[in-house]
Structures are given as structure tokens and as C-alpha cells.
């Protein structure tokens, strides 16, 4: 994967703000958080690719407990469809 154009194979988990994971496809991509001192609106662009072995509906979610202010960071958006989880439909 590349982060802002720079190739990376892993990151320190304490710097991951979210992750994009599709357990059914073996995909688990940590998403590097922006620096605390970065200006407002700053983003990181993560590019990765994977092959889909079969058509079907796959569940995706963020595995980083990113819902600040909830129990263990796992409430709110982590438990709401369309926020930190959803479905991928792979056509034939």
C-alpha cells in the first residue's frame, strides 16, 4: 500500500486512526491518522489493491475502536450501519 504516495507494508498500530477490514476477503488495511499538529482539514491518502476471489456480499468494518467517548471506543459509529461498517457487493 502507499500512504501519501509513499510505499509502506505496516504501520505502528498506535498511529492508526481507523482500519478498513473485510474479514471474508482477508483484507485488513490500517489507515494512518493525521498528525496531531496537522492543519485543519489535513488528510492522508492510502492506496491499496486486492483481488476478489468470488462474487458475493462481504462485510467490511473498522477494527480500530475509534468511537471516542463510548465504552472502549466501540459504541456509536462503531455500532451503526453505514458509519464504521457496511457491506461490499461483488458482482459476477
Amino acid at each position, binding site marked *: 500500500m502507499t500512504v501519501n504516495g509513499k510505499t509502506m507494508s*505496516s504501520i505502528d*498500530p498506535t498511529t492508526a486512526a481507523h482500519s478498513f477490514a473485510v*474479514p471474508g476477503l482477508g483484507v485488513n488495511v490500517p489507515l494512518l*491518522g493525521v498528525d496531531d499538529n496537522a492543519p485543519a482539514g489535513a488528510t492522508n491518502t492510502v492506496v491499496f489493491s486486492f483481488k476478489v476471489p468470488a462474487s458475493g456480499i462481504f*462485510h467490511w468494518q473498522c477494527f480500530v475502536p475509534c468511537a471516542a467517548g463510548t465504552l472502549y471506543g466501540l459504541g456509536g459509529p462503531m455500532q451503526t450501519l453505514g458509519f464504521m461498517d457496511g457491506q461490499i457487493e461483488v458482482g459476477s
Partner: protein
Amino acid sequence: MSATRRLVYTLGAIWLVLAVIGSFVIAILPFPPGAASNVAGSVTDTIRLLTWAAWPVFSLTIIGVIGAVLVRRSDPDAAAAPARELRGNPRLASTWIGVVGAVVLALAIVGTITLGNDDAAQALGLGGRTISGDNGNVIGGALDEGGYLPVQVIAQQWQFTYRYPTLGGFESAHLVLPNNTNVQFHITSLDVTHSFWLIALGVKGDAVPLHDNVFLATTQQLGTYRSVCGELCGLWHGAMDDNSMQVVSAGDFDTWVAQEKVLDAPIMKYLPPYSTTYVPDPAAYGS
């Protein structure tokens, strides 16, 4: 011989044949969960034994109902007589209550003793959940000092991952076990209560945050099996369903372990030290 008596003899003969044939059929039927582990084998044997014991009673009941219908249809008054004889028969009632009460009491005593001594199954070599089983005193090599391969099952919303503390502590999203091996599952959770259910191996243990639930089983059959979460754990509970759990030969297991170690090498420095439980710290993650 009266027609009713002849019918009773006929139905009795039919029941006898059914009971004998049924007993043989039950002895060879492939009851779940099978024999993929010693735990599954003991569960299967128990189900078979209970079915075998229940079948004669069940078939007798069905034959009795059919007989009563036939008698009633042939002579509408005949059925009333035996019913009157049964009603208010204190000897029959006390015998019935006494026998049933004794059976229930005996089963309650056996069940209570078994529950009180949770390691009774291990003493008999049947595996299962254990309270006093050691909590992973790793001394080197693949097996711990008890001759078990410790495998940690880590549940979180909504995936299981597996950690092998005696094999370098790597973590995998897939569960692979060597055949003919005593496995010591250490089941825990990072968030809410889950339940790790390895159906074919008869392994089912609650995954509770900050708790190390130990379950022993010995693999006995090569194959690919299914594992699911058995405790409603939130939105994607149903997604915790994996059909790729494998029991492989010792050689294939060693090969898989070597591959996983290579795959995990870049991230091993980020894994927390092996522990029987983990406390998630959301504040530690990136902004």
C-alpha cells in the same frame, strides 16, 4: 382370544421389531458433532446413548397411541374401562411417582457432582472446559508443560483471531491445528461477551473480557471445519462465521507456522506481549 387382546399382541410384536431394528439403526447413524475431537466423540456417544435409551419408550408410546385409536374405533366403549381402572389407583400412582422421582434425583446428584468438579471430564480423558487447568505456563517448544498446545482465541466485534504463544506468539486470522494433538484453548475477548464455538470439535467456550476461559480438546480427524460465535454480540454477530478452520497433519502444521511467522514478521514488534487477557486502550490509537 378376544379381538382386543389379539391387537395388543400384534402391536406388541410390532413394537419389539421396531425397538430391535431401531436400536441397530441408532448404533450406526452418524450423529453430530462426530468424532473430530475427543470432546466431540464423547458428546456424540452421549447423544447416541440417550437416543438409544429413548427409542424403545418413544416407539412404545406411539404404538400405544395407535393401539388406543384402533381399539376405540373398533369398540367405542372398550377404551373407557381401562381408563376407569387407572383413575385413582394409589399403588400405580405412587410407583410411577417413586420411580420417576428416583431417576430425576439420581440424575440431579450426578449432575451436581459433575458441575462441582469441573475437571471430572479431563480426569476421564474426555476434554472440555476446565477451571483448574493451568493458564499457559509456557516453557518452550510447541507444547506446554502439560503436553498441550496452547492456542489463544481472541474475540472482538466481529472477528476471532488466534495466537500461538509457544510458537513465537504470532497471531493469525485463521485457526489451524495439528492432528492428534492435545489443544489447550485460552478464550478471551477484547470488548463484549462472545462465545467461541468450534462445532465439529465440540468446543464451545464463552469469550469474556478480562477472563481466560480454558478448554481442552484433542484433535482426531483431518478436515476443514466451521467456527462461529455462539453469543449474540452486536450488529455483525452473524459475520463471525468461518468455514476455514483446519486440522492438518503435523508436517503441514509446521509448514503453515513457518509461513505465518514470515507473514507476521513485519508486525510482530507491534503485537502486545502474550497475556491471558488484554485491556483495550482506545486512547492509544492515532488521532
